[in-house]
């Protein structure tokens, strides 16, 4: 039954493309939010560190978006480059989780977002080092080393702020509470994740959660912080970041990011 297995292979390829795009968008937007802070950090060492993390994530994003474009080309015959994907998609064509687009309200909010996201991404890429897709496994092998540092960095600051002054503890707790409703979205399963996990290409998000929980608890305890008791934020009729449904703030990020590129159609840089 070559036809049927061909159709099945196309389903998997489509899911892989969608999956890699999600990974790429997570990294791209997480990188962008950190890049906004360069030359605005609380101290010079943090300007270096945040730029460093932003760069790592941007490197991951470029590898992933490039690969998403190439796998898409296999299906459609049309190649979209990393820049086409970053600069020429509409807001609702980005499929990053909403967590990474949360604004840098203050350094505690940045830290909370990084803690929750890099804790997740570390587990994810650890799993993806075993991907049956060699490109993904290769990207994951590099990413997991970087994310280990990102995770440590966020953990260190969470502890310093949680176990610092009264003000820093208050801010860190508020920031965690603001980011927490976006956590469930990281671990949500849908057809895409089920297909890629089934094919051994991607990871089952639910399986990542226990290790993530242990990591986060292991940071909150010495930080003197509690797990926020806030329910997840709803989507829109069940749709959320993975479906292209984002926050209002995201539109401004996209406008700023794309304006120059879109102002010069077809130009090279």
């Amino acid at each position, binding site marked *: 039954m070559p036809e049927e297995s061909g159709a099945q292979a196309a389903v998997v390829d489509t899911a892989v493309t969608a999956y890699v795009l999600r990974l790429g968008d997570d990294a*791209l937007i997480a990188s*962008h939010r950190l*890049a*906004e802070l*360069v*030359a*605005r*950090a*609380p*101290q*010079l*060492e*943090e*300007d*270096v560190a945040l*730029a*460093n993390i*932003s*760069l790592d994530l*941007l*490197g991951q*994003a*470029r590898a992933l*978006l490039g690969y998403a474009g190439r796998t898409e080309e296999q299906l459609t015959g049309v190649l979209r480059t*990393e*820049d086409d994907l*970053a*600069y020429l998609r509409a807001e609702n064509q980005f499929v990053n989780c909403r967590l990474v687009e949360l604004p840098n309200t*203050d*350094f505690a909010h940045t830290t909370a977002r990084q803690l929750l996201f890099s804790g997740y991404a570390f587990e994810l890429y650890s799993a993806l080092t075993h991907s049956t897709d060699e490109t993904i496994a290769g990207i994951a092998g590099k990413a997991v080393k970087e994310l280990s540092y990102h995770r440590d960095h966020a953990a260190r600051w969470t*502890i*310093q*702020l949680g*176990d*610092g*002054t009264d*003000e*820093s503890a208050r*801010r860190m707790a508020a920031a965690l509470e603001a980011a927490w409703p976006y956590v469930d979205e990281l671990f949500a399963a849908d057809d895409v994740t089920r297909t890629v996990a089934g094919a051994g290409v991607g990871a089952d998000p639910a399986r990542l959660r226990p290790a993530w929980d242990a990591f986060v608890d292991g940071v909150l305890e010495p930080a003197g912080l509690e797990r926020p008791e806030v329910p997840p934020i709803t989507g829109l009729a069940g749709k959320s970041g993975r479906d292209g449904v984002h926050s209002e703030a995201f539109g401004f990020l996209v406008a*700023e*990011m794309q*304006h*120059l*590129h879109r102002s*010069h159609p*077809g*130009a*090279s*840089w």
Partner: protein
Amino acid sequence: MTSTETPPRAAPEGARERFDAVIAAGERVEPRDWMPDDYRATLVRQIAQHAHSEIIGMQPEANWITRAPSLKRKAVLIAKVQDEAGHGLYLYSAAETLGVGRAELLDLLHEGRQKYSSIFNYPTLSWADVGTIGWLVDGAAITNQVPLCRCSYGPYARAMVRICKEESFHQRQGFEILHVLAHGTPEQHAMAQESVNRWYWPSLMMFGPPDAESAHSEQSMAYGIKRFSNDELRQRFVDMIVPQADALGLTLPDPELRWNDERGHYDFGPVDWAEFKQVLKGNGPCNRQRLAHRREAHAAGAWVREAAQAHAAKRARRAEREHRASEGGAA
């Protein structure tokens, strides 16, 4: 000795002679060596100004990170601004070897009592400015700084070796950005040319006022901190960039610019020092903005720095308690 020199306080027997001999031999003064007060003061002023320039200089370039037109350029730009933060770190550390802490120097910067390079009081108004800053501003900075790699004060000289190496890399990247624009669409070419038109004269002003009007220079030369005059460096820079502009296919906005066979240098037109002085006095397009940005970032980060200190103190107290408890247990 010049008349402005402060007499050294408590110089150990023969220290001055040893210092002078080190300078004369073109060797290095190190932090634990005795040094004259005015040597130290000159170095602190210069290193601080240089460090401040690195961190203020992050702003005009960071201004384009979120709008960079390709992901590759965005990565290169983030890395560049990160390098500048790193340069700031080395240089504040070099100043610390002279007994002045970073916090103190930042306060002086924020209060407007220490300067930074006036070039950063100009705005970055287009993407091409990212290229032009790399090519012209970093180019001028390198011309100024390469001689500092042989500066008489060891920590500063060593910081400069590392910084110059990275700056050359940045200059090549800037040149490449402009090269792509100059050979791109007509709009991109125009963007590059407009940018060079804005930055050319300010970059010449980076070498400071003409030698005839330059304060500080003479003593700095004698101390081996400065090795060439402002005008010598400016000429060296012009000689370097004219053929580079040709290679880019861009023009420099000076109708008097031409090769002088006799001098073996390019002649160039008079610099408008009136605008330079206004910018130095604080009335440039971005003077207020740059300092306000720094002050705001610093103030917004105060609670973070306090938290880090408070946490370190708590940890130290806990370690002490545990240490005592274990000793008590052992006793």
